[in-house]
C-alpha cells in the first residue's frame, strides 16, 4: 500500500513538473521545473531500491546539469530569456505526435509478457562496481575518454576569443 502511494505521488509530481518544463515561456522557470523533474526521478529510483543510482542522479543531474543550464541562461540578456510561442498548428502536430509515441509504447507494453517483481533486490553499489571493473571495463574506460573529450571540447568551444 505504502509503495503504491509513494509511487503515485512521485509519478504525479514527475509528470506535472515535466509538463511545466516544456510549456512555460520563461526560460529560467523552465530550467527550474526541469530540476524538480530530475529530483523526482531520483525519488523514483529509491522506490526501485536503486539507492546508488538515486544519489548519482541527484548529484550529477540536479546538481551539475541544472547549474550548467542556469549559468548558460544567465549569460544571455533578459530579453532573450523567453520562448516565443510556436504556432498552434505546430503545437497540435507536436501533441499528436507525442500521443502517437505514447500510444506505440503502450501498445508494446500491452502485448508483452512482463516479468514479476523479484522478492529481494540483489543489486547494490558493490555489484555495480564489480560489473564495471570486470565485464564492462572497456566501456568504463571509453566513457572516461569521452568525458575528457567533452570537457576539452566544451572549453575550446566556449572560450572567449581574442579580438
Amino acid at each position, binding site marked *: 500500500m505504502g509503495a503504491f502511494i509513494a509511487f503515485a505521488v512521485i509519478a504525479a509530481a514527475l509528470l506535472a513538473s*515535466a509538463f511545466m518544463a516544456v510549456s512555460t515561456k520563461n526560460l529560467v522557470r523552465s530550467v527550474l521545473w526541469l530540476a524538480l*523533474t530530475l529530483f523526482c526521478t531520483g525519488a523514483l*529510483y529509491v522506490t526501485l531500491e*536503486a539507492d546508488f543510482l538515486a544519489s548519482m542522479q541527484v548529484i550529477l543531474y540536479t546538481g551539475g546539469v541544472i547549474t550548467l543550464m542556469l549559468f548558460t541562461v544567465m549569460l544571455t540578456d533578459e530579453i532573450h530569456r523567453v520562448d516565443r510561442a510556436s504556432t498552434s498548428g505546430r503545437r497540435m502536430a507536436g501533441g499528436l505526435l507525442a500521443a502517437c509515441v*505514447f500510444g506505440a509504447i503502450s501498445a508494446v507494453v500491452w502485448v508483452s509478457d*512482463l516479468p514479476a517483481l523479484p522478492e529481494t533486490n540483489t543489486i547494490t553499489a558493490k555489484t555495480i562496481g564489480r560489473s564495471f571493473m570486470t565485464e564492462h571495463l572497456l566501456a568504463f574506460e571509453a566513457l572516461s575518454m*569521452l568525458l575528457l573529450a567533452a570537457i576539452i571540447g566544451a572549453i575550446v*568551444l566556449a572560450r572567449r576569443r581574442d579580438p
Partner: protein
Amino acid sequence: MPLSAYILLSAALFSLGVYGALTRRNAIGLLVSVELMANAANINLVAFSRYLGAAEGQALTLFTIALTVAEAVVGLSLVLLLYRSRKSLQVEDAAEMKG
C-alpha cells in the same frame, strides 16, 4: 508495482519530452526537452534492471547519465556560441542550412 506502471510512466515522460522538442523554439528549451527524454530512458532501464535482477541495467544507466551530462555540456557551449554570433537563442535564426 507492476513493471508496466514504470514503463508507462517513462513513456509518458518521453512523450512530454517529444512534445517539448517539437514545440520549443528556443535552443535551451530544446535541450531541456532532450534531458527529459534521456531521463525517461533511464527510468526504463532501472525498472527493468530491478525486475530482471540484472546489474547491467543500472551500470548502463550510470553510463547514460554520464553521457547525457557530457552531451549537455557540449550542447550548452554550442548554444553559447550560437548566442554570441547571432544574439538570439531562437532556433529559426540558425537556419543557414536551409535548402
